[in-house]
């Protein structure tokens, strides 16, 4: 088994992105029934979401700039060019929106969400938006991956029916 730095960067990007989404989901669930005792836990979960998203950005950005151009050329020659021209193009910009929301989450949870209904509503909304946009980004990543797979299968003469 040959695991390259390229593999580690790509898998780390996906893992940190998933972790950020799970942490945001954790914030959402805790906030539904927020109490003074859970405020510290919610803040920690929000920090995990922000830090994980930052790590996913850095790793994904490095991979996108250094390694993706070769994959892009393969995808565009394959049977699923939309995997790049629609899904990757959308993903590479949508991830900024998820990131901005994740960086905002620790700020939003600093309000007393267990007594302040307005603050609770803001935190619930932001956490839900992180989860939804994060799922869209993860799904787009899977389509990009499949676009490269089917292109390589066609190039190698396998997978064709």
């Amino acid at each position, binding site marked *: 088994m040959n695991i390259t730095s390229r593999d580690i960067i790509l898998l780390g990007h996906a893992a940190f992105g998933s972790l950020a989404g799970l942490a945001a989901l954790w914030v959402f669930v805790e906030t539904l029934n927020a109490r003074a005792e859970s405020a510290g836990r919610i803040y920690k979960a929000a920090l995990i979401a922000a830090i994980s998203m930052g790590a996913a950005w850095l790793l994904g950005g490095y991979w996108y700039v250094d390694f993706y151009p070769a994959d892009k050329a393969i995808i565009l020659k394959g049977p699923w060019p939309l995997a790049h021209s629609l899904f990757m193009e959308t993903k590479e910009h949508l991830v900024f929106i998820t990131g901005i929301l994740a960086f905002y989450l620790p700020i939003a949870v600093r*309000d007393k969400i267990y007594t302040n209904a307005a603050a609770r509503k803001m935190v619930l*909304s932001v956490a839900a938006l992180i989860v939804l946009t994060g799922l*869209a980004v993860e799904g787009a990543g899977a389509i990009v991956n499949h676009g490269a797979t089917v292109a390589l299968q066609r190039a190698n003469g396998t997978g064709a029916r």
Partner: protein
Amino acid sequence: MNTKPPQLGRASAAFALAAAIACVFNTALAWARDAYAPLNNLMASLTGNPWITHCLADCVVFAGLGLIFRKTWAANKIGPNHLVSILIWAVAAASLGLFAWFLLF
């Protein structure tokens, strides 16, 4: 008895409005880069890759506006429910705007 409706904290309100504007800015910049090659080339010349410049621009807009709104209390003049709506609609419009742009053009 305190009848004052709950308000968002100063930083929370400020950065919520900044986040909404940064999300819309992000989509507008993506459209502009895609439609106007000289802008994309200029952004590429700044950091070596237009995507990196785009990322930094979004961060500067979010952090910069957040700090300005925090200092001026500008976002606290907007009701908290209205601020939540602004953020949700900004994220929805910006996200769908990206998808629609790359689907159609």
